[in-house]
């Protein structure tokens, strides 16, 4: 589904991402973890053709993303608040995204109706602009907007940050359902090891732009990840 080959991104001589080869099959829930500056957001931005790769490229469903725009109809994403249009209400925003993805109002309404629990009554029908919502509620709106129009690939950068515990648990269920029941390829990045191991079938650890671990999730994965990041902390303590 998503095939990355010889991908690298260099800013002023500093390589921030360098992936030799990475294949993400269709319907996989894929988790990306790593410390700050590991290259998670860079990888997602490359996947969305928001920045130009220095070398190599990403092929999504046989479309080379930096050469054709044909990946757009089946890909959706929520990276950060700059994906929201502040002067729209959440409903208007959903309809706008819906229109871009060929969904009419009824389609969008029936989709958002499924997320009533997730919204917790704070999004729909509040007559507020997105810019006036709290960070957490903005995020909820952005995540649900990324689900509009039956995308085959969904990219969510740090979806759990800023969400309250209840919403985090609901979101985990949503992401699991997407991959398991609907065959959607979900790419998630997170700092929270527990959440990713709960949600993702496969977890890739990035460190300074390189893939250092590629794990199939099993009951021992969380321990392994904790050990990996914990040992980093020990090493850096020793260095000090």
């Amino acid at each position, binding site marked *: 589904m998503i095939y990355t080959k010889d991908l690298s991104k260099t800013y002023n001589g500093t390589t921030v991402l360098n992936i030799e080869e990475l294949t993400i099959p269709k319907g996989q829930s894929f988790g990306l973890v790593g410390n700050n500056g590991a290259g998670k957001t860079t990888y997602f931005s490359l996947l969305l053709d928001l920045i130009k790769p220095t070398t190599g490229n990403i092929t999504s469903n046989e479309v080379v993303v930096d050469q054709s725009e044909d990946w757009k109809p089946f890909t959706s994403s929520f990276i950060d608040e700059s*994906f929201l249009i502040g002067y729209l209400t959440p409903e208007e925003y959903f309809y706008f995204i819906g229109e871009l993805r060929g969904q009419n109002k009824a389609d969008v309404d029936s989709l958002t109706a499924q997320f009533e629990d997730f919204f917790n009554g704070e999004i729909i029908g509040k007559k507020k602009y997105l810019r006036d919502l709290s960070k957490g509620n903005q995020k909820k709106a952005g995540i649900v907007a990324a689900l509009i129009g039956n995308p085959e690939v969904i990219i969510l950068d740090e979806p759990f940050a800023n969400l309250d515990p209840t919403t985090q648990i609901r979101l985990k269920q949503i992401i699991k359902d997407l991959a398991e029941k609907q065959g959607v390829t979900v790419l998630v990045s997170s700092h929270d090891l527990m959440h990713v191991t709960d949600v993702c079938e496969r977890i890739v650890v990035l460190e300074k732009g390189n893939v250092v671990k590629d794990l199939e999730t099993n009951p021992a994965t969380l321990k392994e990840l904790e050990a990996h990041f914990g040992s980093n902390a020990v090493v850096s303590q020793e260095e000090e």
Partner: protein
Amino acid sequence: MIKHFLNLEWKQYFRSSYWQKNMAINIFMVFFALYFIGVFLFIGAFLFKIVGKLVPDQDPFKVVNYYLFYWIIGDLLMRFFLQKLPVMSVKPLLTLPIKRSTVVNFVLGKSALSFFNFLPLFAIIPFSISLFLNGYETSTVLTWLITMIITVLIINFLNFIIEAFSAESELSMLPILTVVGVLFSLNYFEILPMTTLVGSAYLAVSNNPILILVPILILAACYTYNYKLLRSKLFLDSSLKSKVTEVNAADLSWTERFGDVAPFMKLDLKLIWRNKRTKSMAFLLLIGVLYGLFFYPQPMYREMTFMYAFIGIFSTGFFLINFGQFIPAWDSGYYKLLMSQNIKYEQYLRSKFILMVISVVLLFVLGIPYVYFGYKILIAHFAAAIYNIGVNTHVILWGGSFNRKKIELDKKAAFNYQGTGAVQWLIGIPLMLVPMAMFGLVNWLVGFAAAVALLIVLGLVGIIFHKKLMKAITQKYLDSKYKMINAFSQDN
């Protein structure tokens, strides 16, 4: 403590990317400032002589004092549009052990150092010297000078009080217009002779130095009021919790007839209507309509046929120019979304194009009454409108692909240079000067009919090749996609 604040200010100013990236604008502003300083110096140095020549039988000092009222009104008006209360990012300071009063006093004190307070000094001091040289008593001149400086500061703080009120009212221009309007009409309709009152007051103070306490008290009152206003705002909840505005939803289903660009048109209309900066721009439409009234009532301009084209281009294209020059920066806040969404760039641009065309047609129709000043004006405006639709829309869209400046939508518009780069200044040449020059030249060489025909033909050519031009423009945008995404995600 003040030392730390000053240090922070210094760093904030010189480390802002705005300063580093906008040398051109900075240089421009410096020249602007130097120009005004020069003008004021000139006025200050020669005012005494000029007034003496104009009204030889009166004491120039008195005459000047009687006109101070107009200066106060004018200064207030100018400051309202140009001067902003200096901002300080207080949020990080609130949790630190700093007294709130220190922060407030610092912000207010800093405002006293504004350029607007120094500018009048360039006129006041030379004028005082000339008074002194002309044999006025030292004590009178000195008292007058000090009173004037206090007045400048009073205006400074009065302006912030007015601005505080205007920030809260929906029609932001209302408070200043009320204050200035009431003062001016009181004087104009001779209900209260403000000019004489103000003039006598200044003369009285100058002759009795003890009376200087009155302006000092007024200044203290203004300062205290400002202090209270600011102090009450200096809590986390008031700065964190921005005012939540009720949604005003309008029925935009009429846009559906434009087919696949409808979603973008709806978005653009909401963009214009729901954001401060764009909203004030929409009111500029009105100025566009009325623009001709500055010129046509005067017979002098009516004889200059080449002016018709300029006014025509300007008044029918007023919205086009103001809105178009910031495409696509209007959408800079969510540009990443647009670029990763399932959209065709061309639809996005065509929506802007249609919007501009509608505005040109609308402005032309509203401008039809200008026929009162002569049928030729209407014909020239018609030609200008066609030219705007066929040529200028494309030129401005093309120019937009060079936009690299982010715009924050909820800032005020007047004299807000955010998002302005060299492109915005340069684009004015082909937009307005070129058609005006062509029109003027042909009009002079061949005749009015030929000049009108030229503009119309050029416009029609643009309309005929619309599809092709849009394709080229779209390609230009695609080529600079990464650069724009990068530039728009930078903070100013």
